[in-house]
């Protein structure tokens, strides 16, 4: 599937073709003036302790729902005309692509911002977990406070990396930020823009 929806979420083991996805995002529309994207890859080498592989786990169903809510939020903030998030799961070796976030807008500023916003949001609110394998053994990757701080730039409080029970709970995307502008989290499923969402793997 390539052009089925305005907002697309795909969680998959397989690799993806960046050029083809970006072309599909723009295809058939003349009001799109800017397509921006971010591709995340597995970092290896000595700086990463000789990392041999990352294994990504996710929460089927919730992961898709969480990212869909982020896409709806991005649409409202940045006038996104089309957007896609592809995230791989399973075992990935250094150099492999992990994630693609791409946004098509009328103008470049919104397209760039939408990609950055989606990545900051995804890092702190989408249920994925990375386990890294090195010659020294395997370990789960720790969440970073810097990622929470990155999301705070957008006016959304985040405490994903905080420890203990005293930590502020992570807010659902639709409840975060300016509530006056955004639908109630319990009704977001009825939001008209969600009707344009499409998935490769319905829950």
């Amino acid at each position, binding site marked *: 599937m390539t052009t089925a929806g305005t907002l697309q979420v795909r969680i998959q083991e397989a690799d993806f073709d960046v050029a083809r996805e970006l072309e599909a995002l723009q295809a058939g529309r003349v009001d799109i003036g800017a397509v921006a994207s971010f591709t995340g890859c597995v970092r290896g080498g000595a700086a990463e302790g000789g990392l041999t592989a990352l294994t990504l786990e*996710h*929460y089927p169903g919730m992961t898709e729902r969480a990212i869909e809510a982020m896409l709806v939020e991005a649409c409202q903030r940045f006038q996104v005309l089309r957007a896609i998030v592809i995230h791989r799961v399973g075992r990935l070796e250094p150099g492999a692509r992990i994630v693609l976030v791409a946004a098509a807008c009328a103008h470049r500023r919104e397209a760039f911002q939408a990609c950055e916003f989606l990545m900051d949001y995804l890092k702190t609110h*989408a*249920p994925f977990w*990375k386990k890294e394998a090195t010659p020294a053994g395997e370990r789960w990757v720790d*969440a970073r406070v810097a990622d929470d701080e990155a999301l705070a730039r957008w006016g959304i409080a985040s405490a*994903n*990396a905080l420890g203990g029970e005293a*930590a502020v*709970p992570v807010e659902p995307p639709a409840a975060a930020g300016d509530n006056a502008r955004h639908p109630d989290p319990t009704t977001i499923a009825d939001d008209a823009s969600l009707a344009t969402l499409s998935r490769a793997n319905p829950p």
Partner: protein
Amino acid sequence: MKLHLRFFASLREALGPGETIEWAAAEATSAGALREWLRERSPAHAQALAPDRAVRVAVDQTMAGDATPLHDGAEVAFFPPVTGG
């Protein structure tokens, strides 16, 4: 009440993928109260869900907090802070 428990990442390794349980809660039917109650189930639960461990909770596949109320048939997931992207 009947609850569908799910565990992910390091919690899944310690406690298994989850199970459907019957929780005879007296009063507090919140996610935080459930976490507290689960600690009594085994030493592994006590350790994985200890108060000083960073554990996130989702109710019906939506991020939640300790105060989030639970309902019969709810899907309650416990997992460590997320690290995707």
